[in-house]
């Protein structure tokens, strides 16, 4: 019995060693952060949400972009819980700062950088990612190529700052050197105890790609400053297909 536990422990240690060699942060710091993702944690390498890495979000239209920014802000809220400042770099920003409060972020702890040329987003993000004093860096832009994303990843590996790269309406979905690729789509909210009106926001969170993890699809509801896992039938896809046919 003791031999088995010893072997398990050894395997666990080896696995952590490999992960840390690959650039994942497996230190105590990341263990303590609970992103409230529940069952989804199993999909991540080592069962921990990878901080100190670049996460890519990609949204094809305006409504998905709002949903992705919403989900991203929830993750950001957890990263900033200990206090700290986050940098939000964007070209053509639409974010309304007071709304961040609904997602668990103090809006005055976010510094917005609004650049005039799209290329500058990457420069600012790289500079920011090298700065260990920041909690996280978010960048919103349209297109980024593989080489540029690799520079960001290298910056992150040194400073252990978490970066979010949000691609809005990208021209093509090329591969990037990011640890994870997410796709967030809004889901119809369910009526609140049969009351009329709009319910709590719901998202379909699709982990399209995760290095050393298992991709999958999850559904979450943001309620009372917490993420709740919800089950919704696949009626969504049927509906969207119908819609496309109708107005194509």
């Amino acid at each position: 019995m003791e031999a088995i536990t010893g072997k398990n422990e050894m395997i666990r240690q080896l696995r952590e060693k490999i992960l840390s060699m690959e650039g994942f942060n497996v230190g105590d710091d990341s263990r303590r952060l609970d992103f409230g993702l529940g069952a989804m944690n199993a999909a991540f390498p080592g069962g921990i949400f990878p901080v100190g890495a670049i996460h890519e979000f990609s949204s094809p239209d305006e409504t998905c972009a709002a949903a992705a920014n919403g989900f991203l802000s929830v993750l950001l809220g957890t990263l900033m819980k200990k206090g700290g400042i986050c940098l939000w770099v964007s070209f053509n920003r639409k974010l309304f700062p007071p709304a961040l409060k609904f997602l668990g972020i103090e809006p005055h702890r976010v510094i917005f950088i609004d650049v005039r040329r799209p290329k500058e987003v990457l420069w600012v993000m790289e500079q920011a990612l090298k700065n260990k004093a920041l909690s996280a860096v978010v960048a919103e832009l349209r297109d980024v190529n593989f080489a540029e994303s690799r520079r960001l990843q290298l910056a992150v590996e040194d400073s252990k700052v978490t970066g979010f790269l949000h691609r809005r309406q990208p021209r093509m979905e090329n591969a990037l050197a990011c640890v994870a690729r997410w796709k967030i789509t809004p889901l119809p909210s369910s009526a609140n105890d049969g009351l009329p009106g709009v319910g709590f926001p719901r998202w379909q969170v699709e982990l399209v790609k995760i290095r050393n993890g298992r991709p999958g699809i999850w559904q979450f509801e943001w309620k009372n400053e917490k993420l709740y896992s919800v089950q919704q039938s696949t009626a969504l896809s049927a509906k969207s297909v119908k819609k496309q046919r109708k107005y194509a």
Partner: protein
Amino acid sequence: MPKRYLYIWFGYLAPDRLVKINPELRNGPFLLYAAEHGRMVARAVSPALEEEGITRGMVVADVRAIFPDVKVFAAEPAAEEKLLKDLAEWCFRFTPTVAVDPTDGLILDISGCAHLWGGELPYVRTIISRLRKGGYSVRAAIADTIGAARAVARYGNELIVEAQKQSDALALLPPVALRLDDVTLQRLNKLGFRQIGQLLSIPRANLRRRLGEMLLYRLGQALGTERELLKPVQPTPVYLERLPCLEPIRTAKGIEIALERLLEMLCARFFREGKGMRTGVFKGYRLDGETVQISIGTNRASRNAAHLFRLFELKIVELEPALGIELFTLEATLVEDVSEAQEALWSMPGSNQTAIAELLDNIAGKVGAQAVHRYLPQEHYWPERSVKEVSTLGEQPETEWRTDKPRPLHILSRPEPVEVMVALPDYPPKHFRYKGEIINIVCADGPERIEQEWWLQSGPPRDYYQVEDENGARYWLFRLGLYGDRKPEWFLHGFFV
């Protein structure tokens, strides 16, 4: 030691300043005006125009009627004030205590200074001739008291009033020389007092009863029985370092080394004095007589040589060395105090404020300072006004961020008009058309009526609806105006998460 004061009166400060800028105006008729009660009134008149009988206080239109070719310029009181302060700083070569007498005089405390110039007469003559050479028409006088020196400089024609002789010097001057208010002056005029000497022979009690305490006070100041304090001008310290080169520098590496050395010298001084740089200019004087320069700004005062070097480094390529640069200077044009212990603005484990401020400086240097934004809540319901921008890292919100009413995560900077189908007035729309696509609304919340803040702006109110379509996308729509008076318009203003 008995006090001695020198008063310098710049009779035509504003016109002289203008002539120095536009030399072709010299000896020409021109005036400077300021708006007053909806009229343009002459504030200062050139000597040539004054000879023609035009005085300050006349309406510009009247002057134009008399002299159609008169040139008029807007008065710049701030620039004149600055000029006077600069002149005061120039006077530090004659005495350490210089005060400004607004709006056109300087008071110098010359006690114990004049003998260095070989007596009071050479002293005052040196000052007057140097100022006149500089293009200013000045008159000056030395006396035991500020009041007497001022009165003699402006209304008398002596250069020096002997010690304890101020009552003799004042006797023949008009009462206006005493810095009195208009009401007292008018009363004195009515009573027939044309000279200060007439006042001196009247018992003080009578003067006080008839003309008030102020007259006695001013008289006392001029005669030396009342004390008068000076508010000396504080010299602004110059943070400037120079680095001459043995050989002209032509390479970028050489410029970098020069910059590093200058920063080292300047930062050492900053550390001694507890200061930091907010803006700085790095200049190179080229062999061909041209100067080239780059400047930087920081978000908070910094005396970190490495950080400042990084800010300059981004711009070194802009320096054109041409034949070579033979002298480098580095000047901190705006200097602020640096608090020794950086106060904790946000409790941040393992991170510091300075690192972030330096990062922001870097970013501002590359993409422009207007790119950096930080927001605080503002107590307004109108969504566009609910946040205010702040430029510092330290400022904290005075009010809470509100979460009682829904606000969208994405907002359109300009609400976009949409076509809607509404079943009943005051109901949310059934569907709306946005970018050529019809969006069916499944459920909705609202309306939340937001009225215009009448003290800022008038117009129809907005009725906001939070609506959700069949895919779960949530929108923020509003109707501008009420039903009834005219057809209300609908707009899309944002996207919820």
